[in-house]
């Protein structure tokens, strides 16, 4: 439906892989990378929310989504997966490297924390250190992907401080939504007061995500030429239908309306979480699809021909 096909890359102004000067789509970060980002932010968000509530099923599920799902899709995307360990080598300059260290800390100390909760194997003095390191790792994982995208100026649409914020907001929104669904499935939250608090947080996060989406579009519309092309792709062109209906409509407006006007039960909670999940996944995918590189040189602009 929104594949970057030959028809789409050969549209006026877009050069694709041809020998014409013009806008080019970034093509190297695609579905597996988007899925890895989705898993990372969902898992880390669920872990953070669950840790704050001592909600063991959420903690374990968060660790699994990130540790297994994210790792699998990153390795699928990677050209030379056998050398993936080398990504640990440059945390001084690369957000990918910092993120991998975050995953190591998050999954490592998160697993130790789970073992401590289940079998009391962590010495008493070290419990809070393990807790803090696991949360810190999860915070890195839930934001670094946004930093990795915004770090580079190549793709104007991505080069904004809103990228890490959107990563964190979506991650925490997925976390709160999944915690509510799990608690309605029968996994009890230790303190019942948390339930209503998480419900309110979910509504606040949906509104925050909507503001963030609007800000992203606003910045792109009024940004450089490459960012304006991304805006047109997302709002008027072949990516508009999945973005406006999927990300904005199903992913944020419908869940908000359900939460505001329909009493919460297992079915509504499941529908809301499904909608948010679909919207978030499409967001991740479409942000990659809409990544546009500026023309390398425009003789009309540079040489005033």
């Amino acid at each position, binding site marked *: 439906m929104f594949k970057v096909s030959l028809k789409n890359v050969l549209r006026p102004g877009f050069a694709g892989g041809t020998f014409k000067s013009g806008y080019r789509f*970034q093509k*190297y970060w695609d579905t597996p990378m988007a899925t890895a980002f989705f898993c990372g932010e969902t898992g880390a968000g669920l872990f953070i929310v669950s840790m704050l509530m001592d909600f063991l099923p959420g903690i374990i599920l968060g660790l699994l989504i990130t540790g297994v799902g994210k790792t699998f899709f990153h390795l699928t995307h*990677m050209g030379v997966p056998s050398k993936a360990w080398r990504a640990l080598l440059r945390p001084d300059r690369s957000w*990918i490297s910092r993120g991998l260290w975050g995953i190591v800390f998050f999954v490592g100390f998160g697993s130790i924390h789970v073992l401590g909760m289940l079998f009391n194997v962590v010495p008493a003095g070290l419990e809070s250190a393990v807790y803090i390191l696991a949360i810190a790792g999860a915070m890195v994982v839930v934001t670094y992907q946004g930093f*990795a995208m915004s770090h580079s100026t190549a793709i104007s649409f991505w080069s904004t401080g809103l990228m890490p914020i959107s990563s964190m907001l979506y991650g925490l929104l997925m976390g709160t939504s999944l915690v509510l669904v799990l608690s309605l499935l029968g996994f009890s939250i230790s303190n019942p007061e948390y339930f209503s608090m998480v419900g309110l947080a979910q509504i606040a996060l949906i509104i925050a995500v909507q503001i963030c989406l609007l800000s992203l579009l606003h910045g792109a519309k009024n940004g450089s030429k490459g960012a304006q092309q991304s805006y047109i792709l997302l709002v008027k062109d072949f990516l508009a239908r999945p973005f406006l209906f999927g990300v904005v409509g199903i992913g944020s407006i419908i869940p908000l309306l359900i939460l505001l006007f329909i009493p919460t039960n297992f079915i509504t909670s499941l529908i809301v979480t499904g909608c948010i999940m679909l919207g978030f996944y499409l967001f991740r995918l479409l942000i990659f699809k809409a990544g546009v590189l500026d023309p*390398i*040189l425009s003789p009309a602009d540079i*040489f005033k021909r």
Partner: protein
Amino acid sequence: MTRYGMVFDIKRCIGCNACTVACKQENSLPDGVFFTRTLSAESGEYPNVSRTYLPTICNHCEDAPCEKVCPSGATWTRDDGIVMVDGDKCIGCGSCAVACPYDMRTQIEETQITNGLFGDGKLTPFEEQGYSRFECGSFTKCDFCSERVDGGLDPACVATCPTDARVFGDLDDPDSKVSRLIRDRMGRQPLPEKNTRPKVYYID
């Protein structure tokens, strides 16, 4: 200290793409992989229309974004300013490709190596010898023909250009041809707003 750079004279470029072919031959590039391209761009409105040819190549940026984002240390800059990629260290994550504003990074896919230039799965002796330098899945790019430069030669694209539209030399030497061209004819860098400080200049 030497700091290599290149100047493209757009007035001289005739769009023959001899540079593209010479580069592919020199570097044994598989099908679909280009280190340099000569793009064409039309400007104006009928009947006042003109076509400009824009040679493109890795800009070997002073502040190379591809080097900054590389998590494995595969991308590095030589003392003479040539930005290099070590295929043995590259993990193929693609961060360099999305960080490069000039779209100058290419991933070597397995099929590009195994299918061969004729697409029948049989590699010619030239391909067998040349493809051994590539690691499947890793990213690669122009290195200003560093072996030739080390031997005192110009890069293959410069040596083959029939109109002298490409000039290679030391940007730190004020008397070099590249420095004079940039100074005298107001050399412009591509996408200067990206703050990458390219070492490739265009003159008109």
